[in-house]
């Protein structure tokens, strides 16, 4: 493997750790101030939590259990193995959760695509979901990178603009809901990162020699970037540690490439109505560069749009003889596979496009046998011997 320019640069940097006196302002103070003033409630992180460090050194509490799963429409709708794997891992670890139907999409995909909404509506949608979580007593865990990014934006706006608070409060009163913000806005990839030792303790498949490239999601670490997890032991603290920290802990070999900071090309409206842009960007700036510089066995990422874009853009590019053809999945699916999850019944890889079979073989998984098992369970459903495949059927 040749040394990429990125590796050369990183090799020169020293371990970077931020001391408490060099920390940036902490939004928690404003949040609790508003609570004291009676303007809103703050839902506290449950007692059982792990503390991690963020980009500018502000500590962040990641709850281990009792979580309210704020699902992603793109994951549940088009990559269902993504959300299924998140739930499966929690069950396997023995941590309780709530999967609500009293939840709407954050609607931010539509907002960033079409702007057919406004600040108050977006904030009200976010706070309605937060109130729904609060009412159950479970703490919100956000599955989608864009929901996570957008909710951080909403929190910043709510803290800064009293008029917006008044507007949203009025709407929530009409709905009979309290005005609540959670103490932390937590993304599932932060949860998996924080619990990486627990996950690794249940690893049953050996991932030594599996080459990984990571695509970090823009809305995770660029939008209201202070919440994103940075760890001095991962990339010397120069890049967000989620995904990479977990993949490394599972024994995979994370490889660098020079367009790591680039977006995937999703574009919100482009992925739906202007895919020539999305496809070009995803393949020319991401997949081809990864292939050339790192030749990974799999691309791991942690957001709905990124998995969709990087996976689905390869088919047409392949027809043009481009240097593509690498499977794409979330690190949740990757971790579930490490813990012994079924590639089809849990990870639902048949919903993915780029060829993942060589990767499964490298992981020691007989995908033909696994597919036969999946087909058998579907046949049972078709014969109406069973209404649904259950958690019991997949060992949790």
């Amino acid at each position, binding site marked *: 493997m040749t040394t990429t320019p990125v590796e050369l640069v990183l090799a020169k940097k020293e371990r970077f750790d931020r001391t408490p006196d060099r920390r940036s302002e902490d939004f928690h103070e404003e949040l609790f101030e508003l609570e004291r003033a009676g303007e809103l409630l703050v839902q506290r992180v449950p007692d059982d939590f792990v503390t991690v460090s963020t980009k500018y050194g502000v500590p962040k509490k990641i709850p281990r259990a009792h979580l309210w799963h704020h699902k992603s429409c793109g994951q549940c709708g088009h990559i269902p193995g993504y959300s299924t794997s998140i739930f499966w891992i929690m069950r396997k670890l023995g941590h309780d959760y709530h999967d609500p139907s009293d939840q709407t999409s954050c609607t931010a995909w539509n907002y960033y695509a079409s*702007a*057919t909404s*406004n600040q108050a*509506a977006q904030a009200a949608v976010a706070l*309605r979901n937060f109130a729904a979580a609060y009412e159950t007593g479970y703490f919100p865990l956000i599955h989608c990178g864009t929901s996570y990014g957008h909710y951080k934006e909403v929190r910043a706006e709510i803290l800064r*603009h009293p008029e917006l608070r008044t507007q949203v409060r009025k709407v929530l009163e009409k709905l009979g809901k309290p005005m609540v913000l959670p103490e932390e806005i937590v993304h599932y990839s932060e949860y998996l990162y924080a619990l990486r030792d627990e996950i690794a303790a249940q690893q049953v498949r050996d991932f030594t020699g599996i080459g990984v490239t990571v695509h970090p999601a823009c809305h995770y670490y660029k939008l209201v970037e202070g919440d994103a997890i940075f760890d001095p032991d991962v990339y010397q603290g120069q890049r967000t540690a989620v995904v990479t920290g977990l993949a490394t802990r599972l024994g995979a070999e994370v490889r660098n490439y020079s367009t790591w900071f680039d977006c995937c090309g999703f574009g919100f409206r482009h992925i739906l109505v202007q895919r020539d842009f999305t*496809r070009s960007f995803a393949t020319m700036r991401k997949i081809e560069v990864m292939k050339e510089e790192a030749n990974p066995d799999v691309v791991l990422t942690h957001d709905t749009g990124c998995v969709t874009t990087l996976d689905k853009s390869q*088919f047409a590019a392949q027809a043009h003889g481009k240097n593509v053809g690498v499977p794409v999945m979330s690190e949740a699916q990757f971790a579930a596979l490490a813990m012994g999850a079924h590639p089809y019944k849990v990870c639902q890889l048949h919903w993915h496009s780029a060829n993942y079979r060589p990767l499964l073989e490298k992981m020691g998984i007989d995908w033909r046998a696994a597919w036969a098992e999946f087909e058998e369970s*579907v046949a049972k459903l078709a014969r109406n011997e069973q209404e*649904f495949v259950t958690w019991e059927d997949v060992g949790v």
Partner: protein
Amino acid sequence: MPAATQDPLRKVDDVAGFADVPRAEKERLVAEVFADPRFADYLYGCYECGICVAVCPSARFYDFSPRRIAQAAGRRDVDLLYQQMQEDIWECSQCFSCLRCPRGNNPGGVITIMREVAVNNGMSSAREALEGYSRIIYKIMSTGTQVSPDMLQPDAFPDWGPEVQDVSENLALWRRALPPETHHTTSTGWSVAERTLIELYLIWLETGALDMIRQVDEGLHMILEEVMEDRLEEEGIER
């Protein structure tokens, strides 16, 4: 100030794909952008360093530049901002890579606001950009989840490979094969409770978000309004 056509930063007038409007109209539209409460948090002038362009995915494939947007807004260049609202803003990917701006600007956020104003005023760029997009708006506003499994149709995504066809042919069974109890749906991402949907409708109605649709797609607005008002009436909710 030089005439707009002499401004080297402007795209050439005779290729502009939109009708010019009186200066007062441009001023009115631009004033709406500046009046948004978020605007003051999103722009602090501009160093003209171009860092935002270097990180911008849309700048690589379109004649588009977040720096031009930030500069035009910083200079309060009404003509240029109007042109950008007609020609540029829909090219942005809303990735927010440009938040790396050393001045603390958020050019992508300024674009979000410009788009909102374009929609609110039914500008031709907004109508054009949202053509073919109405089914998505319908989905998100009426069902509470934006994308659904039954959208995966081979004619809608012919470039996504043969797996789309497999999914659409086996959809009902493959959804039943998902262990999470909320995932057995085909027309929504997950099962959304009735009460939740009504709350969402109230949000769209109370915040004026539904009214925005009227400006860009009257037919869609009528359908959505009917769906929501009927449902609220059934529940005996008065507005």
